[in-house]
C-alpha cells in the first residue's frame, strides 16, 4: 500500500465523490487537502439530500444498461468499504419493492417491459401478489401486485458521509470547510491564496458548472418524516403515471421520501405542489403515515451532463469527475475505482470507455 511515493493531492468538493476519493488516497499514503464551499458536518452536497439507494435494476429503467453494470460494482464494493470504515451496520441489502395501485397496473407492466428490453428476459426480479408483499413488508396492506428486486440495497447515507469525514481526519487529511475554490492544473485558489499540488481532483458537482459548459442542475425535492406506526425494511417505489416516488427507511423511525425531478436550477424551498405529491404518495402507500411528523424538506441540484451519465476528464495536473445525476451512491464506486486506477496507474478500470470525458463528445445540433 505504501510502496507508491507520497504525492500531494487537492480535492475540491467534499460530497460523496470527494470524501471517498480522499479516504482512498489517504489510505494509499498520500497527502490530501479537501476543500468545500460549504459546511462539512451538514454539507450542501447532493449526497446529503439523497436517499442513499443502491438500486441498479430500478435505476436502469430510467437510464441505460451501463448504469446497471456500474451499479453491480457498487453492490460489490460498498460492503467491503463499509467494513473497512467499521460501518457495516450502515449497509442494508434486503432488496427493494416496486408497487403500483390497481388502477395504475400498467405502470408495472411498462417497468417490467423496460427492464427486459434493457437487460434481457429473466431479469432479476420476482413478481409478487398481495400476500407476497405483505410477507416482505407486513405494514403494506393495500397492494395486490408488485415486484421484488432482491439484490438491491440502501445505505444510511448521512452517517456514511460523517464516518468518511471522521476517517479522513484520522488519517491526517486536511479539511477546509467554507472555502470556495477555483481549480487549475496543479493549483487551487482559495479566497486567501493559491496553493500548489501534484494533482487537483475536482468533485464539486453542480458547483463546478463554470468549468463544464454542458453541466446542468436538476432540481430534486425530498421530505424527511418520522413515525413509529409503520416499519419498512427496504426501499419501496410507487409507480404512478405522473410521478415515481420512493420511500427509504432510515434509522430511528425516519423515512426519506423523494424525489421530484424538475429541469430547473432553482434552489428555493420545496413547492406546495411537490410537498403534496410527496406526502400523498406516502399516505397512499399506507395511511399509517398520516400522523408522521415532517422533520425536514430537502432541495438540491443533481449534477448532470446531457446524457445524464457521469464523466471523468483527465488532464495533466487536473482530474474532474462529475455528472452522477440521481445515481450518486450507485455510481460512485465505479467512478472512484476509475479515478484511482488512473492515479495509481494500475487496477481495475472496466468503465474507462464509458467514463472518459476527454474524448470529444457529439456536438449539439446547430441552430437552423
Amino acid at each position, binding site marked *: 500500500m505504501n510502496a507508491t511515493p507520497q504525492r500531494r493531492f487537492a480535492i475540491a468538493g467534499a460530497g460523496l465523490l470527494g470524501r471517498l476519493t480522499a479516504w482512498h488516497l489517504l489510505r494509499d499514503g498520500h497527502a490530501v487537502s479537501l476543500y468545500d464551499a460549504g459546511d462539512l458536518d451538514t454539507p450542501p452536497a447532493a449526497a446529503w439530500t439523497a436517499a442513499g439507494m443502491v438500486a441498479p435494476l430500478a435505476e436502469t429503467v*430510467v*437510464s*441505460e444498461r451501463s448504469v446497471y453494470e456500474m451499479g453491480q460494482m457498487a453492490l460489490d464494493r460498498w460492503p467491503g468499504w463499509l467494513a473497512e470504515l467499521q460501518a457495516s451496520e450502515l449497509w442494508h441489502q434486503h432488496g427493494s419493492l416496486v408497487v403500483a395501485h390497481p388502477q395504475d397496473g400498467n405502470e408495472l407492466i*411498462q417497468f417490467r417491459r*423496460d427492464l427486459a*428490453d*434493457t437487460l434481457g428476459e429473466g431479469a432479476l426480479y420476482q413478481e409478487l401478489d398481495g400476500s407476497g408483499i405483505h410477507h416482505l413488508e407486513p405494514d403494506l396492506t393495500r397492494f395486490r401486485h408488485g415486484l421484488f428486486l432482491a439484490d438491491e440495497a440502501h445505505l444510511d447515507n448521512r452517517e456514511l458521509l460523517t464516518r468518511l469525514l471522521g476517517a479522513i481526519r484520522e488519517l491526517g487529511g486536511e479539511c477546509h470547510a467554507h472555502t470556495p475554490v477555483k481549480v487549475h492544473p496543479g493549483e487551487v485558489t482559495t479566497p486567501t491564496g493559491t496553493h500548489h499540488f501534484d494533482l487537483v481532483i475536482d468533485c464539486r458537482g453542480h458547483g463546478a458548472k463554470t468549468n463544464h459548459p*454542458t*453541466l*446542468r*442542475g436538476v432540481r430534486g425535492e425530498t421530505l424527511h418524516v418520522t413515525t413509529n406506526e409503520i416499519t419498512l425494511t427496504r426501499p419501496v417505489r410507487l409507480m404512478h*403515471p*405522473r410521478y415515481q416516488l420512493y420511500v427509504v427507511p432510515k434509522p430511528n423511525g425516519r423515512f426519506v421520501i423523494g424525489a421530484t425531478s*424538475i*429541469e*430547473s*436550477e*432553482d*434552489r*428555493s424551498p420545496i*413547492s406546495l*405542489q411537490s410537498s403534496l405529491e410527496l406526502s400523498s404518495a406516502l399516505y397512499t402507500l399506507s395511511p399509517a403515515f398520516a400522523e408522521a411528523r415532517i422533520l425536514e424538506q430537502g432541495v438540491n441540484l443533481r449534477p*448532470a451532463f*446531457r*446524457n*445524464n*451519465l457521469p464523466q471523468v476528464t483527465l488532464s495533466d495536473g487536473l482530474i474532474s469527475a462529475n455528472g452522477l445525476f440521481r445515481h450518486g451512491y450507485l455510481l460512485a464506486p465505479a467512478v472512484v475505482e476509475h479515478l484511482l486506477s488512473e492515479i495509481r496507474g494500475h487496477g481495475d478500470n472496466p468503465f474507462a470507455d464509458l467514463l472518459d470525458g476527454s474524448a470529444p463528445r457529439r456536438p*449539439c*445540433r*446547430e*441552430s*437552423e
Partner: protein
Amino acid sequence: MHTQSPHDDALVLYEERFNSRFLLGTALYPSPQVMQDAIEAADCAMLTLGLRRQNPGGGNADGDGDAFWQILRESGCHLLPNTAGCRSAREAITLAEMSRELFDTPWIKVEVIGDDYNLQPDPFGLLEAARELVEQGFKVLPYCTDDLVLCQRLQEAGCQALMPWGAPIGTGRGLMNRYALRTLRERIDVPLIIDAGLGAPSQAAEAMEMGFDGVLLNTAVAKARRPAQMSAAFARAIEAGREAYLAGLMERRQTASPSTPTLGQPFWHATP
C-alpha cells in the same frame, strides 16, 4: 377536390408558415441528450414546454436562463410555451404573460385543467383565458376537448387554431371519439391540431387522414424505449396521413370490387 401537392403544403397558424405538421413536447425524456435526438428525428414545427414548475432563470444569477432552456433554444425549433398545471383562467393568463416576457414570444398553448385525475381541460376556464389572451395579442392555441360548441366559442373568441384532444394526456388511447372529431373537422374551419392521447404512429396517421392539420404529442415518444426512432416513425406517419388526406381516400364499400378484372379474360386460369 384536393389537388394540392404536399410540397407546397405548409401548415399555416396565425399567418405563420410551418414546414412540418408535427409538434413535440419536451417532458419525460430519460435525458436531454435523448430529447435532443428525438427532436432532431422529428423535424418538428414546434416544441412545447411547460414553465409552471421549470422555472427558467430561477435562482440563476447570470440571467441566461437555466441549462435546460438553453438546450431547447439550441434546437432551433419554434418554441410554444404552455400553461400546463394551471387550474383557473387567472393562473393561465398570468403564466402566459410571464412566458411572453421570458421567451419573447406571443405564442401560447393555453391549458386549463378541470380534473386532476384525467387532466381533462376545463372548457369554461379555457374560454375565459383564451378571450383575454387573444385580446392581449397572444397567438393562442387552446388545448380543448372535442366538444363542438366549445370549439365554436373558442373560434368566436378569436382563436385562429384549436387543439382538441384525441384522448386524455398520456393515455396513448388514440382517437377516442371519432364521431365528435369528424364533426369538428366538418364544422370548424380554422386549423385543428390533435393534441394529447396518441400512443402509436398509426393513430397519428388516422388523425391526419381525417383532415386534421397537425399532431402534438409527447409521452408516446418520450416513453418509447428508443425515443428518436419513435419520433421518426411519428414524423413519417404524420406525413403519410397528410398525403393520404390530400390524395383523397376512397369511400368504403360493402361489395368487393376487384381492381383488376380477371373474370372473363382469356387464359386467366393459366397464369404460371
